[in-house]
């Protein structure tokens, strides 16, 4: 099971990225959970300084931006089994 985490305190961009991840995972038929991390302590611990942050299977992929759909598909494909 793959784990995707979206870090963000709950602003519009963070919600959008989470929704995009859920959608993409379903479309690619990948077995993965999409989690939202909202506690500041957790966000800071991950080393992310801009939200939304994206982590796939323990690896921080991006921070502070919403990727295009193609980029997100590429990231998820590359970092999941």
């Amino acid at each position: 099971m793959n784990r995707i985490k979206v870090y963000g305190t709950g602003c519009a961009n963070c919600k959008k990225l989470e929704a995009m991840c859920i959608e993409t995972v379903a479309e690619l038929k990948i077995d993965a959970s999409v989690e939202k991390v909202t506690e500041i302590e957790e966000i800071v611990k991950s080393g992310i300084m801009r939200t939304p942050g994206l982590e796939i299977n323990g690896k921080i992929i991006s921070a502070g931006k919403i990727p295009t759909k193609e980029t997100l598909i590429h990231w998820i494909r590359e970092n999941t089994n």
Partner: protein
Amino acid sequence: MKNKILIPILALPIWIFLYASLKSTTDFIIYSFLNLEKESHFTNALWFFIYEVPKVLLLLTFIVFIIGIIRTYFSPERIRKILGGKSLFAGNILSSLLGIVTPFCSCSAIPLFIGFVQAGVPLGVTFSFLISAPMINEIALVLLLGLFGWQTALMYVTTGLIIAIVSGYVIGRLKLEKYIEDWVGNLTVGETEIEEKILFTNRIDSGMTAVKEIVGKVWIYIILGIAVGAGIHGYVPENFMAGIMGKSAWWSVPVSVLIGVPMYSNAAGIIPIVQALLSKGASLGTVLAFMMSVIGLSLPEMIILRKVLKLPLIITFAGIVAAGIIIVGYVFNIVY
């Protein structure tokens, strides 16, 4: 994928052509095509609108694209490293400059603040960054450039920088570290190096995404704002604002700041108001002070920062920045 570089190269001559022909096109539409009578209120207002809207949108597209590319070179993670061991003042100058080119939205303010402070960036240097990033805004820059010319735009950037540098320096000298919430010090902060192979085509992509996002979001405010501005241009009497916001009213600068702080507006919404105020007799220093307090000091951001800063530090921060803005307002009123 390589031909992405061609898009801006091809777009540039078109952009220059459009920009250069704005005036003659507007003249043609107003006087030849619509055949309107010269020097009437309505003609003046319509000419202003038809000329300014495409001009501001063209400038906005160009500058947002360039800044979008520049920003790919500056991530906060990288900036944190640059600012790490810097001394006060030199660090304040550097972080204020970096604040201009680094994007962050107010929901990132806390992780950014903690990330900086924990990495050993001095408190005052961190504040210089936090002040300059929202205060010097590319949309405000474009609108000032388009509506008032480069002198005013340059003045805006310079004064914003001075406020960020001096305020950060003062906060640093006051030794206010004890007013950071205790839990911040107990956190373990991770260090992440986001591996990203950034090719130049990716940077162009970022520029284009920035254009799509920012221009896509603010064009409607710009059109509305310019429409209001055009209306005021044509119909409101010339010295309407002089009594309340003119130079002779010494109290107008602090009052503008007091009104401006609780107001929360994006730059696109505020500049057309600024333009209208100015054209009706308000003085530049007063209006600049009003604009900076609206976009640079925002109540929502302070409420967010309250989670990591104790009240005395927030009040000091707001007080110093507000004082800086007021001084700049007076200086401009005296000089111009």
